[in-house]
């Protein structure tokens, strides 16, 4: 992964976190990492845990950011989410997975952020 991509990701996550705070999410943890992978943002709305995956793109040439969350990635997030809940003794809590897609625009400086609630569903 190039330095540039990592930087893009970090900027996107920062923007996403600010955006979520603005609309009422309580951010609990950033970059929760296990050996299965990473959850970008762990937040809470009321009693519901929300695990957020952030996807950032510089241009739309590779398609919308949402499309790059594959089945494999979804499974990783689910596994991580369960580990997180288990470690915090919250096995019975309600939880869901959201995706935030961030489009950065170098030229015009207008970035767009989109939140997809409940993006990952069981079947």
């Amino acid at each position: 992964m190039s330095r540039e991509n990592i930087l893009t990701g970090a900027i996107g996550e920062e923007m996403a976190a600010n955006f979520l705070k603005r609309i009422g999410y309580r951010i609990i943890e950033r970059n929760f990492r296990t050996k299965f992978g990473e959850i970008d943002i762990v937040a809470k709305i009321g009693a519901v845990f929300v695990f957020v995956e952030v996807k950032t793109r510089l241009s739309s040439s590779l398609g919308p950011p949402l499309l790059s969350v594959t089945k494999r990635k979804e499974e990783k997030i689910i596994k991580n989410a369960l580990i997180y809940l288990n470690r915090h003794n919250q096995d019975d809590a309600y939880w869901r997975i959201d995706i935030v897609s961030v489009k950065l625009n170098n030229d015009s400086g207008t970035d767009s952020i989109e939140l997809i609630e409940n993006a990952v569903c069981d079947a």
Partner: protein
Amino acid sequence: MGIDAYEVGVETDMGSGLPGVNIVGLPDMAIKESKDRIRAAIKNSGFSFPSKKITINLAPADIRKEGAWLDLPIALSILCSEGLIEPSAVTDMVFCGELSLDGKLKPMKGVLPIAMSIRTMGKNKLLLPHENSKEAATVNDISVYGLNSLKETVDFLNRKIEISPREPIEYYEFKKNVRHRMDFSDVKGQEHVKRGLEVAASGGHNVLLIGPPGSGKSMLAKRLVTVLSEMTLTESLETSKIHSVAGLISPNKCLITARPFRSPHHTISYAALVGGGTNPAPGEISLAHNGVLFLDELPEFKRDALEVLRQPLEEGRITISRISDTLTYPCKFMLVAAMNPCPCGYFTDPKRQCRCTPFQIQRYLSKISGPLLDRIDIHIEVPRLNLETITEKRRGESSESIRKRVDSARAIQKDRYKNDGILFNAHLESKELERYCLFDKESEELLKLAILELGISARAYDKILRISRTIADLEGSATIEAHHVSEAISYRSLDRNLWG
């Protein structure tokens, strides 16, 4: 299931876990897909779909459920667990209906059997799609509510809006609409055939019409339903149930009040005739329940299609076994078959020469097996009409006046057989024949003569007795007289070995 409804209880659990919907309790594909319809319908009705792990159970868990009609109950069950509907509001109610993505309710088939079984489930209110409410309202001891959308249903259950139950529809209201487009007076000449059909209608005998092309076999057969006595409420409900399950009831016709006349094409498969499919659906013979099944060009039917008729003709019901179910559908019908006397059709025609070889004729006739022929009491030859009869202006006797005679003959039989569990002379067995067919001296002589001279078999003898009994009933005569017997013998043309 089949033509009887069963109750399905829908339970919903909201649990923690990855949000999603899981339906258990042997659902079929239509029900598995319903979760996407329900999700959209709930969202588009202005409610939020819970992002929880939802488990839906359809009880009893061991019966396979099919069809989209569980959409509404499942959606309501989800909304109920979300607290959007008071659970006490839905007790003693039964729901059914398919949802569209925008939350509207779509009509379904098989409503009548459901409505009829509400009472036995111990409930008294039925909520279903508006289009189906008229059909359900024919069941008078329950309240039927017709609804247009999921939103409307929820508002109704929460008492936000008032919907009055549909007015029960009395049976006689349907009945007064019974009009036959056809009448026996349309048929010119053929008095012998008409009389034969009258006898058949009175005694419930199956009929075989034999005649050259264009002699009016189909025309006569189609008019047979117009002389059958009117359907009773029970008969109407039985037949309607079958049609309802088959999805053949249109929103404004609800109850079948005219006796059905089914005339399947001779290419029909045996499964379409008696019923079949993975989840067995009723076939033509069941759709003809309490009516007439007309098989035109009898020898052209596939052999296996004809052979499967044997048992249903005897028993009045058909049991279909498939991997998923074993179902029994009623099929008490009158069989009317028509055929040509030979492959070219002109064997009995006085004007045209028949071009068939004896072997061809033999083969043609042998397509109808003995056992099937055995179940057809009356064989009538339909002759070609001559010019005078065709151009004649005088109209024949109307169906109405024939039906009056049929009605009285049926009433006599009903009264006579009230302790025997049969309805018609056609169902008489030899023991009963002895008891009920009393001859006078003259007719006994005639019968003996017929056996000797015409070479009538023992089996045909029984049939002649049955037909004579019906003819005597038509005249209101208690004993069978000579002219009854001679008329009966005239309806056995196949016994007289005209062919081959």
